[in-house]
């Protein structure tokens, strides 16, 4: 197991370098000069030159590339150009909003796996029943609708137009992370306020991912319950609940763990759109704002971070695979 961890971690390093390279060249080769993008048309050439120098844009491409790689390694992505964060290091700008994204993404991912697995297992134990068909319809729906559409719909249903739909106001905030004046609340009050704001974006992301996960778990469990060891578990006198939830689920979740790697990019792109819809001040929101504000260093740093997150997510999925399946663990020494 230790050598598996070691080997997988080693292979992640060239991948990360690849991501850094790709991000750099994709943005450098894109048309447009960041300096002219940033300053209004007609700015004097001296001002533009000075800006280019301060951004290091006057260096040759390769020099800039190695500076960038070095920056990636040390976490130094330059300073922000937008008036909002002017001169603040990109790292600090990102670290300022990252906790919000981690909170949203972490809660959604956790809930999606719990809800998705439970629904999938429930369906597998009632294969072919009416409730199975109904749930299959629901999971297919959430699996196929665009996440931003679902976000807008849920926002209408539970917040903006709640009164028209339900006859009484169902109030979940459809924007922001905290109520005005939340700072003056007690710690618990602040936590509740945060959870209240988290509800809609988290619900959207959870539903979108749980749909796919439930479908996957259902298929996987239907395969598992036909296996001989399930019959053995029943024959030794275990109650059905433990046959399914211990002997079945532990095996049924093995392929689902690989989903974890696949869902990481979906989760990240999902957060970008959903943070935007719900004005949740996280990484996604920052990226969209930075693109609009032509804050080139923040876009570069943020994109690298997203890429790195995908690589790390896949690494985690690989390692988890070894944790849940002893056969994999052994096959790799």
């Amino acid at each position, binding site marked *: 197991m230790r050598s598996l961890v070691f080997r997988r971690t080693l292979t992640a390093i060239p991948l990360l370098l690849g991501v850094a390279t790709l991000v750099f060249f994709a943005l450098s080769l894109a048309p447009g000069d960041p300096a002219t993008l940033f300053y209004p048309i007609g700015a004097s050439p001296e001002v533009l030159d000075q800006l280019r120098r301060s951004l290091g844009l006057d260096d040759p491409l390769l020099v800039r590339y190695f500076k960038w790689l070095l920056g990636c390694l040390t976490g130094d992505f330059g300073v922000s150009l937008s008036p909002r964060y002017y001169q603040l290091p990109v790292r600090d700008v990102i670290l300022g909003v990252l906790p919000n994204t981690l909170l949203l993404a972490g809660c959604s991912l956790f809930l999606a796996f719990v809800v998705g697995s439970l629904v999938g297992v429930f369906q597998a134990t009632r294969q072919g029943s009416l409730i199975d068909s109904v749930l299959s319809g629901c999971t297919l729906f959430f699996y196929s609708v665009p996440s931003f559409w679902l976000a807008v719909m849920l926002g209408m249903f539970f917040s903006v137009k709640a009164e028209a739909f339900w006859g009484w106001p169902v109030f979940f905030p459809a924007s922001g992370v905290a109520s005005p004046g939340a700072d003056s609340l007690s710690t618990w009050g602040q936590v509740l306020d945060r959870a209240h704001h988290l509800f809609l974006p988290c619900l959207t992301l959870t539903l979108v991912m749980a749909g796919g996960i439930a479908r996957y778990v259902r298929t996987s469990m239907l395969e598992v319950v036909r*296996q*001989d*060891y399930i*019959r*053995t*578990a*029943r*024959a*030794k*006198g*275990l*109650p059905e609940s433990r046959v399914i939830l211990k*002997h079945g689920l*532990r*095996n049924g979740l*093995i392929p689902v763990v690989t989903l974890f790697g696949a869902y990481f990019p979906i989760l990240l792109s999902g957060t970008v759109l959903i943070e935007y819809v719900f004005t949740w001040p996280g990484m996604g929101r920052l990226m969209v704002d930075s693109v609009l504000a032509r804050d080139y260093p923040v876009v570069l740093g943020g994109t690298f971070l997203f890429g790195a997150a995908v690589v790390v997510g896949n690494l985690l999925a690989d390692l988890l695979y070894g944790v*849940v*399946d*002893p*056969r994999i663990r*052994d096959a790799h020494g």
Partner: protein
Amino acid sequence: MSLLEIRNLRTHLAVPGGIARAVDGVDLDLGEGGTVGVVGESGSGKTLLALSILGLPPGGPDQIIDGSSIRYRGEELVGVGNKRLREIRGGEIAMIFQEPMTSLNPVFTVGDQVRESVGLHTSLRGRAGKEEVVRLLGEVGIPDPSARMRDYPHQFSGGMRQRVMIAMALAGKPSLLIADEPTTALDVTIEAQILDLIKETQTRLGMGLLLISHDLRTVSKVCERLVVLYAGRVVESGPTAEVLASPKHPYTRGLMGSRLSMDDRRKSLRPIPGEVPEATSWPRGCRFHPRCGEMIPRCRTREPDLLPLEAAAPDSGGAVGPTTGVRKARCWLLGETGGGA
């Protein structure tokens, strides 16, 4: 009181092609500490018979048809509640399966899997539970059990896994062990070791044993009595030595024919042509008639009953003990008495 008394057991499965009448009116008796072998070709309903005893047919206990009776020490198991059934499974009647490679859960250590059975059927917990696992694994011949219990099934050979299955079966101190083709998936050399282990354990613990095999030779080495199953029905039963000495049913003779020693070749017995029909459409009349070399017209239209034979031939040599009981067969060639009921 007998240990196991099965009367008119019928287990029918709904399958895409109709209703598979896979077990269709089976009678079987097994005394305390007795050994009965069930033989028949693949598809004759042996596995389903065994699973029915534990209330575990593939689609649930409802597949056991009303009117079936399975009595364990006098207690009716058909229709008994789930809770009692779970106590019986593993605690009174334990089962080992044909495929040791897939019958153990790949994600739990063998120690955990044996210990689960110990926890279900005994009061041994914690340290005592662990010691019991080590004892059980040692008892079935696994070397260095306290280290091996931490290994996963894929780290064991087929024979060793079957030993683990046996240890798991013994954990609940059952009075009846059902072994469904326990050696079919194993090498011949390992086969003998596992059969010896089963036989030795059965004798030492005084358990009843229901040994299932498609191979007449395998069961005849271990069992006092034989039950020959064909197309979901018993076609012949009786003390092993007597059945082997003078098989009464053409199907039994056919099974012996596919397992001949050089000596017996002279008797010109041939293997049975064709194969077991689908359980959804058993032939009319005697279910064996399309494959039978000795068919008479009546076999086509009416099915004979399973009837007791006259007393065993005096020269059969087998000692007829109290547990061996009578001989029965289901064939028109044996006389005109059957079929009226």
